């Protein structure tokens, strides 16, 4: 199962070689080609992993360097992480195609792609890793590449300032997560997610007695006190990465300042890493929503805290959307709103809630990437980001017009599109959990957001077509190949196609039994082969 480990490593190896090639090859097209080939092959690798997981129905444990879990690092991939990783790899392929249109002959292209491939490696690593500390390293890989990409327009005041703010608070967030990881090791005595999860579930002992006699040696400190520190610090970091309410301050500056394809990556994909890591920590590792876990009694508090931060960002962000003058900034605020909805979804603690959250992550990623990319066409054509000065590109190129309209409708949640189904799933989950105040939040935020999105649709579709526009650039093939598939994806993302995947993913998040047993089994089978009493 080398696809798991090779996908991020391949990206990194290509990123390593790009500056070296740049010394000899000065043709910018070459770098576009290499990046496209790399991302497509990485997508195929992740697809292979996805296929394998769905057919086997158990998580894969890939032992890095062949070492069994607590000694070495494992990549543990279950349906949840495989789904997100595959989806990320898919969207990045289109973003690379769009970058070809967007960057053109920009001489900074090798650096740009080096950083972009690094960011993809970071995302895939975050989804695949089964080790608490490795997650820190991958978060930092993702972080540093994103800071660099935000500062790509180095002569723009706001880009550099936004990048500094993002990087500075990102560094603090990284340090706090480092403390959380170290505390995990200090109290649990190991860093493997599956092992830590096993320790938090004493009730599993009756059913898996055989496992527990092997892993009991890996405990050390008082885990109750430690978990408070770990969860507080790591949740701070993850909400920072996801850009939800108390830690959203960097997002409206950083996302618009980046080049448009990077805005799509940041808003559509990078924020998901925070949501994913929160789900992984709260559900799988510490099991605050798992009745078998010793922290189950904390679930009401977590429910309140998470739904509060989610609801606060879902209500606050669309209000901010209404007063924005900058189109990319408006879209960035809508990201905060959608991530807020995702957080409310998994704050419920039910399988339906997690499923709705994941569904919303998928539809939001496609919709947001498409909206940024198509609105970016208008921004490029009009040479300004002021909404009122945007030119009616939609009337010259029907694809762009359709993309803007459809992505906005999907993000609002209009019926035949993916966004409708994900919001409906969220609605169902809230009703099922009896949280009617959250349904009110959902409806209010959608209503407010509709007004906000209409501010974008209006000038791009219904403005007067300007005469001085260079239309040939609007008809390039790479624009079509990047926008059209995402457009189709938004239409295809309906319950019929993704129900199975989402169910599997949600189930694997909520029921951590298989995740734990795979990790522990991997240690036991190895140690038994060596015929050695551990520590001898």
């Amino acid at each position, binding site marked *: 199962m080398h696809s798991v480990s090779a996908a991020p490593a391949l990206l990194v*190896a290509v990123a390593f070689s790009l500056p070296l090639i740049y010394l000899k090859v000065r043709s910018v097209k070459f770098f576009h080609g290499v990046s496209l080939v790399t991302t497509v092959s990485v997508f195929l690798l992740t697809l292979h992993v996805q296929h394998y997981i769905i057919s086997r129905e158990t998580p894969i444990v890939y032992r890095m*360097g062949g070492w069994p879990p607590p000694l070495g690092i494992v990549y543990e991939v279950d349906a949840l992480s495989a789904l997100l990783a595959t989806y990320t790899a898919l969207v990045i392929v289109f973003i690379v195609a769009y970058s070809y249109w967007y960057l053109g002959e920009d001489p900074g292209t090798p650096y740009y792609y080096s950083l972009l491939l690094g960011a993809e490696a970071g995302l895939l690593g975050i989804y695949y890793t089964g080790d608490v500390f490795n997650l820190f390293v991958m978060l930092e890989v993702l972080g540093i590449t994103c800071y*660099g990409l935000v500062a790509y327009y180095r002569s723009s005041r706001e880009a550099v300032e936004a990048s500094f703010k993002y990087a500075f608070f990102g560094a603090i967030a990284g340090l706090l997560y480092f403390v959380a990881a170290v505390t995990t090791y200090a109290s649990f005595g190991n860093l493997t997610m599956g092992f830590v999860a096993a320790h938090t579930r004493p009730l599993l002992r009756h059913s898996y007695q055989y496992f527990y006699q092997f892993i009991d040696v890996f405990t050390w*400190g008082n885990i109750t*006190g430690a978990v408070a520190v770990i969860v507080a610090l790591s949740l701070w970091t993850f909400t920072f990465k996801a850009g939800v309410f108390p830690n959203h301050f960097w997002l409206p500056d950083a996302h618009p300042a980046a080049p448009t394809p990077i805005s799509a990556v940041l808003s559509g994909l990078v924020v998901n890493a925070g949501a994913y890591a929160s789900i992984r920590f709260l559900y799988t590792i510490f099991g605050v929503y798992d009745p078998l876990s010793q922290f189950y009694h904390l679930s009401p508090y977590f429910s309140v805290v998470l739904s509060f931060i989610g609801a606060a960002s879902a209500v606050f962000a669309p209000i901010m959307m209404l007063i924005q003058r900058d189109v990319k900034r408006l879209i960035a605020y809508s990201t905060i709103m959608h991530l807020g909805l995702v957080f409310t979804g998994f704050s419920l603690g039910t399988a339906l809630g997690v499923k709705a959250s994941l569904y919303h992550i998928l539809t939001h990623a496609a919709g947001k990437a498409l909206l940024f990319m198509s609105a970016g066409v208008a921004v490029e054509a009009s040479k300004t980001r002021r909404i009122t000065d945007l030119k009616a590109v939609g009337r010259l190129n029907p694809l762009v017009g359709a993309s803007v309209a459809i992505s906005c409708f999907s993000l609002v949640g209009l019926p035949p599109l993916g966004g409708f189904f994900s919001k409906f799933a969220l609605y169902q989950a809230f009703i099922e959990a009896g949280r009617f105040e959250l349904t009110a939040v959902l409806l209010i935020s959608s209503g407010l957001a509709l007004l906000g999105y209409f501010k974008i649709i209006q000038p791009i579709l219904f403005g007067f077509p300007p005469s001085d526009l260079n239309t040939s650039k609007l008809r390039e093939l790479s624009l079509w190949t990047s926008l059209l598939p995402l457009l189709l994806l938004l239409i295809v993302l309906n319950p019929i196609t993704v129900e199975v995947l989402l169910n599997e993913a949600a189930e694997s998040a909520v029921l951590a039994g298989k995740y734990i047993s795979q990790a522990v089994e991997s240690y036991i089978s190895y140690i038994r082969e060596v015929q*050695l009493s551990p520590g001898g």
Partner: protein
Amino acid sequence: MRKYLVLASIVLTTAVVAYVTTYLGALGPLGLDTRYLAKLFLANTYNPAHRELTAMSPEAVTSIVWDFRGIDTLYETVVFYMAIIAALAIYRGVSYSNVRRGSGLSLIVKVVTKLLIPINIAVAVSIAAHGHLTPGGGFQAGAALAVVSVLLAVVYSAHSFVELGVNLSRAVALRSAGLLAIALVVFTPIVISALTGTQAYLMQNYVKVDSAFSFPAHVQSQLISGTLIWFNLAEFLAVSFGFFIIFMLLSLREEVVREWVGKEDEH
């Protein structure tokens, strides 16, 4: 007012963390004993009797860094690499050739630094090449060699890099060569296993219970610990030229830099 609010919240947080760590014992008993996993690492770091469980290096930290938890270090190198790429992206388009000659510090400092550099290189290589035997390793050696790049920029001037023939593109090339060497060692097991149809893992060093692939641990009775020495040497190359790049960029005079910043149109 805001200052006192911040102060109060920080004091409160620190107090809570202090309480949790000492009275609740969240960090485990401090200073008494080590964890079981630590003993497992220590007992197996150099254990020729169990080849499936050992890294064959008496240096436990290096064996964890490059073998047991090698993937962490690989991506740590990526972070360092990406930081420099991001810095180079900020400085893209700058040419290092029109740096004018500076006067530097006094003769005494210059001559002493000139004598120091060869000794320092010897020490750094020794730290890198004994990384698997004594404390040290690739990054440590690269950081020890960084003193050369700093002193060149400070004691002589930014122009000294040009005189020495270390221009930006050469530094980038050498650093990428080191990084690609790391990537080569990382991918070798997988490639060989794919060619021969046997089982092997990414970043594998020695035989495992389900894989027969192994790098040599000894050359002529000299312990080289399989991949560790190659990783250390390659990392040494990559890191030391990484620092060269950083200080070459930092030592550029502001007039030179301002020539190209702000010329391109804003987006």
